[in-house]
């Protein structure tokens, strides 16, 4: 790759193509760590993973390990999981409970406990502090590195390394309604969901942008799941791998923000059809029917918003079948570490949770029917895009473009009335290029003009 590359050249919005370099090249990957993963809002975990004081859960933000922990006052913190002394990975467990994080290398020890330290994450104890450091080590200066911004959004924990990043809800825009549709209780209460215990973590040899742009609303890859559809995974025992959906299920993308997915046209709660589901499992079917009734009653007079998709850059979620969150952590230019979580209503009956759990695992994860199809596609596409010759030929994103128009029901969103279109993938890639150009947050949030900006190609109305 030449030194003269520019993100806008790699992503050609006008011709609707993307260079293969962005899926395989090491220099592009290194820039992504700086321009995207050190700046964008990233999913860290769920508050239910650290319910008690001193609980911790080790997660990732991009390539880097972070610790999510709850202090003794109940406040949540996210720290970079590295010792300030020699960079040792401070906490090497996946989760647990501790008052003090003590480094296995030279025992520098850090705490969030106000009784031990004055700043959460401060250096609490260092061997030889008196005798060998002569008490001249500034313990506050050498504490753990905290994220400058984090938020607990309906139970989900998000953080960014950029203190000037736009507030999380501005970053989401009206796409937040769809995230809400995954996180809110089936009966319409705000939040009310938890993740089941057990995060599926695995690595696949594909670039992280394959899953991100697949889940952003690629409805054309259904052919890949032909085997799953043939064996009828459908929880009502009919055809396909999911229950029948309400009409008006289409692709919506947010050109200014990079998010997108498949979801339903906006309509009053009372008009959103509740189609019976999980009919092979009457206890689940009944639970969902009763919850939907309560939902309709609770939100009467409001607009029903529901969908699934990708939040730029690397968190994807599904709001119902299967109700899940997946994070695509970059792990080198040609490897992704996937972390998949499964959502249920916190107070759903045990047998309902159990049936949903079985369906989720059968559908998703590396042992799941559907996920394996996708993993093979992404790994094979990554492999076949690495050659010197293969790299000369860009990918094509021309399906359905210039047919999109603004959608009034979701401010900032566009659609073309179809499920099958590549508008969302191009929207995501356009956002990728904007971050990679090192635009500042005023430019990223459309508060300041950009000279070389290329508008997302909407339908030309004559």
């Amino acid at each position, binding site marked *: 790759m030449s030194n003269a590359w520019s993100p806008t050249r790699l992503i050609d919005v006008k011709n609707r193509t993307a260079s293969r370099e962005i899926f395989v090249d090491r220099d592009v990957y290194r820039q992504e760590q700086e321009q995207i993963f050190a700046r964008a809002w990233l999913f860290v975990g769920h508050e239910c993973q650290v319910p008690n004081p001193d609980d911790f859960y080790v997660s990732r933000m991009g390539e880097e390990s972070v610790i999510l922990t709850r202090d003794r006052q109940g406040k949540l913190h996210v720290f970079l999981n590295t010792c300030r002394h020699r960079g040792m990975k401070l906490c090497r467990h996946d989760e647990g409970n501790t008052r003090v994080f003590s480094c296995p290398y030279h025992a520098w020890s850090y705490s969030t406990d106000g009784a031990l330290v004055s700043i959460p994450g401060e250096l609490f104890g260092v061997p030889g502090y008196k005798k060998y450091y002569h008490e001249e080590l500034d313990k506050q200066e050498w504490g753990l590195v905290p994220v400058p911004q984090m938020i607990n959004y309906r139970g989900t924990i998000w953080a960014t390394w950029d203190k000037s990043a736009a507030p999380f809800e501005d970053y989401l825009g009206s796409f937040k309604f769809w995230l809400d549709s995954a996180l809110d209780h089936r009966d319409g209460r705000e939040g009310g969901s938890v993740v089941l*215990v057990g995060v599926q*973590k695995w690595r696949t040899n594909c670039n992280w942008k394959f899953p991100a742009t697949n889940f952003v609303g690629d409805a054309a890859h259904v052919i890949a799941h032909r*085997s799953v559809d043939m064996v*009828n995974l459908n929880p009502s025992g009919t055809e396909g791998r999911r229950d029948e959906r309400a009409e008006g299920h289409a692709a919506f993308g947010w050109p200014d923000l990079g998010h997108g997915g498949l979801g339903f046209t906006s309509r009053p709660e009372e008009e959103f059809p509740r189609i019976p589901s999980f009919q092979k499992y009457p206890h689940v079917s009944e639970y969902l029917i009763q919850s939907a009734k309560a939902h309709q009653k609770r939100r009467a007079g409001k607009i029903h918003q529901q969908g699934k998709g990708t939040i730029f850059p690397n968190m994807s979620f599904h709001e119902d079948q299967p109700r899940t969150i997946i994070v695509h952590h970059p792990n080198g230019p040609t490897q992704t570490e996937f972390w998949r979580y499964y959502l249920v209503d916190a107070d759903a009956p045990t047998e309902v*949770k*159990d049936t949903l759990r079985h369906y989720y*695992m059968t559908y998703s994860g590396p*042992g799941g*029917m559907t996920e*394996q199809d996708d993993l093979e596609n992404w790994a094979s596409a990554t492999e076949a895009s690495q050659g010197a010759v293969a790299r000369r030929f860009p990918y094509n994103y021309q399906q359905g473009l210039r047919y999109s128009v603004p959608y009034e029901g979701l401010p900032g969103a566009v659609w073309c009335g179809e499920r099958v279109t590549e508008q969302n993938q191009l929207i995501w890639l356009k956002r990728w290029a904007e971050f990679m150009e090192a635009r500042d947050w005023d430019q990223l949030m459309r508060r300041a003009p950009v000279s070389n900006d290329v508008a997302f190609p909407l339908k030309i109305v004559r």
Partner: protein
Amino acid sequence: MDGVPKGFEAQALRLDVEDFLHAEADLVDDRKFDQWLALFSEDLQYRMPIVRNIAAPSIANEYLSGPLDVSWFDEGKKLRRPWHAPSEHGQFADTAVTHYGRHVVRKHTGHRRKVAGRISQSAGERDDGGLAFGDAVEIAHDAAYGRSGSFLAWFNAASLRSLI
């Protein structure tokens, strides 16, 4: 342990189990899915728990095998049967679909011969202390056979420890 074969008897059982595993592998490799499925007990629980890296005092909870814990997979015979229905209906006629047929079965056998390798390749490998997926599937099979002479693919940390 009471009732566990020892000495020559144990060696003979081990050979039986190995022969059985190879015969089972042949059924899958030859795509004789109905015969393969018939090997399973009705009360089959086919589960591979997620292993966590946790501190030594909690090590008993290393394997997530609680009733509502997420696993790599956790299925019974009833859940497995529909996946093989297309083969019974003879729908895998053309080459492309035959490939899909193998694919379906491969997904859920975790077979120790051809199949485990391909799952491992597909699922990727954890090199930071977690089990590689293919390896773990093989261990699951070993553990299943160790617990019972008949095919009962339930395994847990205890049966795992008794075998390796």
